[in-house]
């Protein structure tokens, strides 16, 4: 199997408190990998090691290697800006900028100087919104505030914003946890659709969601990776007793 992301012997600390223990994981290209586990087990922490978002936390310390396309993202040569452009992120709570819908999507394109002209910028924004399945709902009000959108629309706007910088990997941290069932379904359909072009890692606390959207599932507990298997197998015939207990809802 061809790994897009390859994690080995990853340990992670917040100051003295260890949050991740010796994680080894291979994430294949153009697949959806779901991270599940009880809250506080380190899913978000782990996700944020993949685009070095934890760099913003002064006390954070990472040990081990994360290779993306074979390159060590924690090497001193790594350009963090380029890394984050390649590895996009969608957050648990939608976080649009205090700008118009258009400018939200254009922001990443502008800062990375990707546009060749005004019309190219418009095209890129439109493409991102189409790919995030939001274009039809907003095309007539691109210049109005992003805060006027519904929760589900805001989250898809954040996905569009991430897609606009043409990433290869998209990290999603419980992207639907604050949304109603219909908005959630839209996001799930979108994830399945995006898989054709992107490698996706999605954190979820919703078992059914992991079952519906992912090809592989990783189960974490107390900072340790307990089991990593194809989702089908994980949900029907897990290797570990703990996984079975969690999935069947005996704790969590």
């Amino acid at each position, binding site marked *: 199997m061809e790994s897009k992301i390859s994690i080995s012997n990853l340990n992670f600390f917040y100051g003295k408190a260890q949050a991740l223990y010796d994680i080894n994981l291979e994430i294949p290209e153009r697949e959806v990998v779901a991270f599940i586990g009880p809250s506080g087990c380190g899913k978000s922490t782990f996700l944020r090691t993949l685009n070095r978002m934890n760099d*913003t936390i002064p006390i954070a310390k990472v040990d081990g290697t994360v290779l993306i396309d074979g390159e060590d993202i924690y090497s001193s040569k790594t350009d963090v*800006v*380029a890394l984050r*452009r390649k590895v996009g992120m969608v*957050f648990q709570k939608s*976080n*649009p900028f205090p700008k118009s819908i258009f400018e939200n999507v254009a922001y990443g394109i502008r*800062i990375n100087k990707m546009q060749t002209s005004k019309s190219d910028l418009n095209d890129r924004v439109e493409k991102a919104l189409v790919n995030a399945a939001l274009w039809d709902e907003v095309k007539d009000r691109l210049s109005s505030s992003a805060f006027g959108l519904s929760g589900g629309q805001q989250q898809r706007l954040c996905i569009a914003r991430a897609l606009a*910088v043409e990433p290869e990997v998209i990290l999603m941290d419980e992207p639907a946890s604050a949304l109603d069932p219909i908005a959630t379904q839209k996001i799930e359909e979108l994830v399945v659709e995006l898989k054709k072009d992107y490698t996706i890692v999605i954190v979820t606390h919703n078992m059914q969601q992991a079952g519906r959207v992912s090809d592989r599932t990783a189960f974490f507990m107390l900072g340790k990776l307990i089991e990593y298997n194809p989702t089908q197998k994980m949900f029907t015939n897990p290797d570990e007793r703990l996984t079975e207990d969690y999935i069947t809802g005996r704790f969590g």
Partner: protein
Amino acid sequence: MLSALMTGLTSACAVFAIAILVLILTYIAVRGFSAINLEFLIDTPKPVGEGGGIGNAILGSVLMTVLATGIGLPIGIGGGVYLAEMGSNWFGSIVRFLADTLIGVPSIIVGIFIYTLIVLPMGRQSGLAGALSLAIIMIPIVARTTEEMIKLVPKSMREGALALGAPEWRVTWNIVMPAAASGIATGAMLAIARISGETAPLLFTALNSRFYNYFYDQPMASLTVQIYNYATGPFDVEHQMAWAATLILVGLILAINVAVRYLARRRY
């Protein structure tokens, strides 16, 4: 029961606070309005009984406030951004402590400081010295409100921009600052209103002038000092003019409030 009592008490306090404000404003309006006319607004002060006005004082106040704001606002906002974004070290703590101390220092002391530093070497009071002391009063207020407003911007918004590959300074400049803009503008407005009402530091630094003066290196009249002079004069006409000038000052401050609120209204 307790909740009803608390609601009653707090409402009573709110009504009391507003009532005092309304009372002061009405009183100023009633006392001042009759003395206001065009001549009063554009004329310079004249000996008692010959009329005269506050035109030069209005000009002086505007000139000094504009210069003080031009100096104080950028420095204050810049300092606030530094404190919010990079000020979690010992240097930041010292700056924060000094700013808080300066906010608490009576403004007359700032006046004495500028008197020693600028007025004595220059050999005379000047609009520049007045504006500088106002700027010094303004800087810590603006810096601290800017810092607080920036810290209110949700971390998630910042992370959203960083995750797109934006460097820190761009995140600060085009995400955090716009998100905090209306709060920063409100702080700036309060600071401008505060300095336009200052008298004590201007007494030593800008002194006063009986003429229209457009030059910052000369003594300059101001509304507040003019009000002080009129109010402490022996004659009733002077007191009348003090009230009228007060009304104009309050009106100007109100206009600044409205203008800044309009500029800082949330567009997104």
